[in-house]
Structure formats: structure tokens, C-alpha cells
């Protein structure tokens, strides 16, 4: 297969963008999912949990918009096929993201317990379903979608319905995302708040970590059983094995910091790296495909050669990315430092 270096650069950046999105929004997904567990007792603790993620959820979600936008811009055909194939699932994901954002902000605009309970309920449900769907969707990519190129329509047609997405491997991927973000969010919360809430959330992280590790290992093992081509890029370029090794080291170091060092901040940072490398492991396992077809891998997969934008577009976007992505990272880190005060959960 022929492809150009710009396409390879964008393939890797595509993976990085999704990874950064997961590691950032993973914080607020996790904190929201923990709301009914850790915030059940008092409105004060619930408020503290919202305050911990309040300044950041929107900025985190922009990484998703950028990842989506980059899919559209760099690989238009992959964007078109992926989003139309996963139509219903994707719209449910969008509705979840809408409900989360709205309830996060509007909850505080009216001091009525029933209203706030409704907002909390919708927000928690949405924050659970969204990562579940993302995990299921990405596992389906690793496994390959049932795509068949239809010459009459000149389009890659999805053969099946939404139920075909619910293979046990993909469901496991969904659960893994949920548990991973619960762990990740619990660490974040433990880092950001103080008092009883800090103790409770750190305890939660310690409780969830073994489950996460177990699911993670199971998922990796099943990836070799239930995907057909996933290992091929790694065997072709063995240096790629550095990514899964790094991923394992980071997640283990996160556990080490949780259990031995008792440092939630460091553990959260390590799990950020873990999630990023984990995403990259998955994306690189598909290389050079963006959406492998499991029906007709050779002719119906979407890859760098048949789905990329023109070199002119890729070049212009690279120039924009080189200037703006480091700038964005710079001011987001600055904002995180300014706005990451220790939230007082008990006055």
C-alpha cells in the first residue's frame, strides 16, 4: 500500500487527539459516575465534586470536537463511513454529551432539591453511557466493522444493525472504559478535594484499581483472540511494542503511587499517560487502516491510501496544528494551574 509521510503524521496525531480527549474527559466522566456513590450523603460534597471539574469539562470536550474535526478534515471518507455506520450509537453519544454539559451548569441556577436531583440523575446517566459507548465503538474498530464496498453506490456500506456492535469483546471494551474512567476520576477527585471526600475517593480508587487491572488484562488477551489483524502492524514494526510496554509501566506506576506512595496527584498523572498510550496502542494496531473491515479486509477497509485528504489540506492543517496545539496545551496547563484550587468539601 502506498501512502505519504503527511498521512502517517496525521494518523498518529489522530490517535494522540483521541488519547488526549480520553485522558482529559476521563476525569469528569469518572467524577460524575462517582457522584451517586461519593456524593450521596450531602449536597455540600456533591457541590465540591462539581466544582472540581466545573472549570474544565468544556475545555476537555473541545478535544473531542477537535478529534472529530480532524477525522473529518484529514480522513473525510473515514469520517463519513464511520459516523453514518454507527449512526444511532453516535447520536446517543451526542445526546449524552449534551445532557452532561447542560446539567453541569444549569444545576446551580436553581436551588430546588428535586430540580438538582433530576440534573444529577441525568448527568450521571449520561456520564456512564458516554464512555460505555466510546469503549464499545473503539473496540468495534479494533475488531473491524462489517463493511462492504458497494460499487453501485460508490460507498462503504455497513452490513448489519446496531446490535452487531454488541459483541462480547466490544461490550468488555465498554465496561473497561467505564471502570478505567472511574479509577481515573477517583484519583482526580482525591487530588482536588480535601477532607472526608478526599479519603473516600482515594479509597474508591484503591478499590477499583484491581478490577481495572483485571479487565485490562482480559481485554488485551481477548484482543488477540477476537481481532484478526490487530497484531500485524506490531510484527511489521517491532519498535511499536514500546507503546504497550510504556502503557503497562504507566498504569503499574499509577497503582504504585496509589497504594504505596499514597499520592493521588502522581497516580492521576501516570494514569493520564496510561490512557494516552493505551489509545495509541489501539490506534497503531489498526495501521494503516482507520476503519478495518472484517468482511473484506483487503478491499473494504478504509485506510490512509483511500480515505485521506489531499496533501495540500494535510499540509495546511499540519501547519495550523504545529502552531496552535502547543499553544492550546500551554494555556490549558496555565488555566489548570490557576483554577486547580483545593476544593473544600467540609467547611
Amino acid at each position: 500500500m502506498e501512502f505519504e509521510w503527511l498521512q502517517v503524521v496525521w494518523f498518529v496525531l489522530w490517535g494522540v487527539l483521541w488519547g488526549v480527549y480520553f485522558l482529559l474527559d476521563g476525569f469528569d466522566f469518572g467524577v460524575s459516575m462517582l457522584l451517586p456513590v461519593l456524593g450521596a450523603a450531602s449536597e455540600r460534597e456533591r457541590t465540591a465534586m462539581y466544582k472540581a471539574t466545573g472549570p474544565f469539562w468544556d475545555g476537555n470536550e473541545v478535544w473531542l470536537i477537535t478529534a472529530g474535526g480532524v477525522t473529518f478534515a484529514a480522513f473525510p471518507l473515514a469520517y463519513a463511513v464511520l459516523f453514518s455506520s454507527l449512526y444511532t450509537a453516535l447520536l446517543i453519544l451526542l445526546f449524552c454529551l449534551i445532557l452532561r454539559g447542560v446539567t453541569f451548569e444549569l444545576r446551580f441556577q436553581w436551588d430546588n432539591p428535586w430540580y438538582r436531583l433530576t440534573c444529577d440523575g441525568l448527568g450521571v446517566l449520561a456520564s456512564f453511557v458516554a464512555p460505555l459507548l466510546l469503549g464499545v465503538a473503539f473496540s468495534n474498530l479494533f475488531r473491524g466493522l462489517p463493511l462492504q464496498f458497494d460499487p453501485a453506490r460508490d460507498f462503504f456500506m455497513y452490513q448489519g444493525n446496531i446490535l452487531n456492535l454488541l459483541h462480547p469483546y466490544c461490550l468488555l471494551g465498554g465496561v473497561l472504559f467505564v471502570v478505567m474512567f472511574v479509577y481515573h476520576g477517583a484519583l482526580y477527585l482525591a487530588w482536588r478535594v480535601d477532607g472526608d471526600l478526599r479519603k473516600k475517593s482515594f479509597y474508591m480508587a484503591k478499590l477499583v484499581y484491581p478490577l481495572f487491572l483485571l479487565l485490562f488484562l482480559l481485554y488485551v488477551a481477548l484482543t488477540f483472540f477476537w481481532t484478526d489483524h490487530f497484531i500485524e502492524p506490531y510484527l511489521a514494526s517491532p519498535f511499536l511494542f514500546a507503546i504497550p510496554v510504556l502503557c503497562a509501566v504507566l498504569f503499574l506506576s499509577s497503582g504504585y503511587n496509589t497504594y504505596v506512595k499514597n499520592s493521588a496527584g502522581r497516580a492521576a498523572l501516570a494514569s493520564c499517560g496510561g490512557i494516552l498510550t493505551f489509545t495509541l496502542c489501539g490506534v497503531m494496531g489498526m495501521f494503516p487502516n482507520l476503519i478495518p473491515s472484517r468482511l473484506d479486509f483487503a478491499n473494504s477497509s478504509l485506510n490512509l491510501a483511500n480515505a485521506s485528504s489531499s496533501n495540500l489540506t494535510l499540509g495546511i492543517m499540519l501547519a495550523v496544528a504545529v502552531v496552535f496545539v502547543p499553544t492550546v496545551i500551554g494555556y490549558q496547563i496555565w488555566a489548570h494551574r490557576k483554577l486547580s484550587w483545593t476544593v473544600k468539601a467540609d467547611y
Partner: protein
Amino acid sequence: MDPIILSRLQFALATIVHFLYVPLTIGLSFYIAIMETRYVRTGDEMYKTQAKFWGKIFLINFVLGVVTGIALEFQFGTNWAIYSKYVGDIFGSLLAIEATMAFFLESTFIAVWAFGWDRVSKKTHLAAIWLVAFAGTISALWILLANGFMQHPVGYEIKDGVARLSSFWAVLTNPYGWLMYFHTVCGAFILTSFLVMGVSAWHLYFNQSKEFFLASFKLASTLAVIFTLASFVFGHQLGQATNRYQPAKMAAMEAVWDTEPDTPMYLLTLPKFTNEPGNLIQALPVPGALSFLATNSFHSTIKGLNDFPADERPLVWPVFLSFRLMITLGTAFIVIAIISAIISKMVASLGWGLWVYILLIPLPYLTLQLGWLVTELGRQPWIVYGMLRTADAGSPPVDWYQVLITLLAMAAIYGLISVSGFVLMIKAAIKGPDKLDEHYA
């Protein structure tokens, strides 16, 4: 059922609801930035309260704009897969650049602003709201250049059956996109200033925080004069560009069927609802007026709809009626803005007259939506003018019932969040600056 019709309805719902929030985000951020600048310069706490009071309404409005915007970006892929495949090389990159340049800036610094009153210095805080305001207009520019490509495609070549970027410069300097940008941003400021005048009038009527709302009203009425006039100028330019680049839309906007030199403008017109040639009512012609408005010459010829094949004509009546109503309201806004600026010092003594301003609040919302109806319905039957038909641009793997279900779900969710959002905004507006509570501390 036709999935294309359902997808069009779904996209219309998503954009119309999204655009309920966009203009206020663009306009009010500048308004707040101006007030906060006065605070930092003079140290007068009243201006800080101005920023906080209007900021509260801004934040509710902003979150609704953000979440409805997320859905839009993904709708191209879900419902318009062939369109995405066909123009993604150009259109997709503009969306990606919009996110990278504007959305990050907007979302990061609005958080600094909302949560940073006591956490960053006064000047940094002021810079944050200016960055938000700046990001809003940057975002508008990129998305309108993207839409401009759909109205007047430039800088592309057809290669392997899809449009490929050939000149980024041509896409960046698309005159249609820039005119839409200026016209839309003016509209955003008009909506904002009328909203501020309306809310101020409410409090002045009930004699609450008089000095505060007189200051609000004064700034808003000044902005209203500037931007109603500017909107008129850019709108006129946009109309002429439409005549140049999208003649079928122009003909539909004025319901012109016959091609004739010295084209008159009929003050009283009613098109047929069946889209058949000829109008139901056509009276009171002003000779050569349409030619003059569209081309600066009384003697030019405007191409009538009869000279377009029937399958290249937009649906005339909604385009025509939306356009006429937009023009009428827009013109009225100029008059109201000028009067308001003149009487802004003594506006408190208007008594019952203040209710005019309160009742006016929804009209700019309507006017801006009408403008978009003209733009988007007038482009039909094309999704990219002259290049790709809407009917051919849908998603092959998506069935009509899938779209129907998501359309109904979207209507329910958007209805719920919009009603909540507007109720809470009205609540915050009525509560007034005296009882500000600090949720973001």
C-alpha cells in the same frame, strides 16, 4: 419516508436551536468585556457588577450554545455522509481549524473568567473575557467561510470524483463567506443590544437599580445604532453578491419569474405556495428598483426563475417571505436604535413605553433566523451551490426510521434544555444585580 427530508428537518432543528444561542454569545461577550474594561480603568464597582450580572446570563446561554454545537459537527458525518466525503477535504479542514483556533480559547478562558474573579489578577481576568469575545468572532469567521464554500464554492478542483482543495487562499478570501460573516456578526450585536435594552427596560419600569440599568441601556443603544446601520450596509453587499453568485436564490428572494431589463421591485407580492411560475399577487411596482439594488444600475437585467430549470429552483414562498420580513424588521431596528440612542438618558421616564423594549426582545431572534432561512433554503436544491444536490448528499447506510427516531429524540432533548435554559436566563435577568449569588466562587 424519505431519509433526506428527515435529515434536513433534523439538521434544521439542530442549527436553528444552536443559533438561538450563538448570537448572544458573540455579542454579550464584547458587551461584558467593555464593561469590565471600564471597571479596571475606573475602579468603579458598578461596572464590575455589570460584568457579573450580564455574565450570569451569558454563562447559561454559553453552555447551551456549546452543547448544541457539539451535535452539529457530527451531523455532517451521520446524516450527510456523501456530502462529507465529497467536500471534506475543504469543509472539514475549516471545521478542524475552527476548533483548534477558537473553541479551545473560548472554553478555557470562559472558565478563567467564570471561576477566576479571586484567583487571577484583575488584568488577567479582563484579558480572559476579551479572549472569549475574540474567540467567538474567530469561530464565526471559520464556520461562515465553511458555509461560504457551500454557497459559493471556490478554490477546489474535482479529482477522483470528489472536491479537492486547490487554493486555500481562495477559500480564505471567499467574498461570499466574508460578507456573511460581517452581516451575521452585526446581527449578533443587534440581538445582544436589543436584549440588553429590553432587560434594562424591565428593571427601569419597576424602578430597580436605576443607575445600573441606565448605564446598560446607554451602551446597548449606542451599539444598536452602530450595528443596525452596519448590518444594513453589509446586508446590501451580501444581496449584491447573492445576485452575482447565486442568481436563483436572488430570484426567489424577490419572487422574480420573468427575466426583463429595468427589473422592477413589487412592493406588494405574494408567491404561489405550489412553486409554480407566476405570483398570486404582484402590485405596486417601483421601476428599475430591483435592478438598482442588486447591481447599482437601474437598467440591468435580473434573471428570473423561469430561466432556471424547474429542478434548480428553490422553494420560493418561504425564501421570499423570510426575506421580506427580515428586511422589514431590520429596517425597523435602525429607526428604533436611533431613537433609543437619542432618548437613552431619559428612557426611565417612558413609563409604559418601556414595555416596547421588553416586547422587542424576541424580534431580533426571529430576524436572524429568517436571515438563515433565506440563506439555506435559497441555496436549495443544492447542498453545495451548483456542485452537489442535497438529494444526493445523504448517508447511504442510514434508514429513514433511524433518522425519525433520532429526530424525535433530538426534538425532545432540545425542547427540554432550551425551555430550561430560557427560563433560567429570564429568572437570572429578572433577579437583577442586587441579589447576585456567587456560584462560581
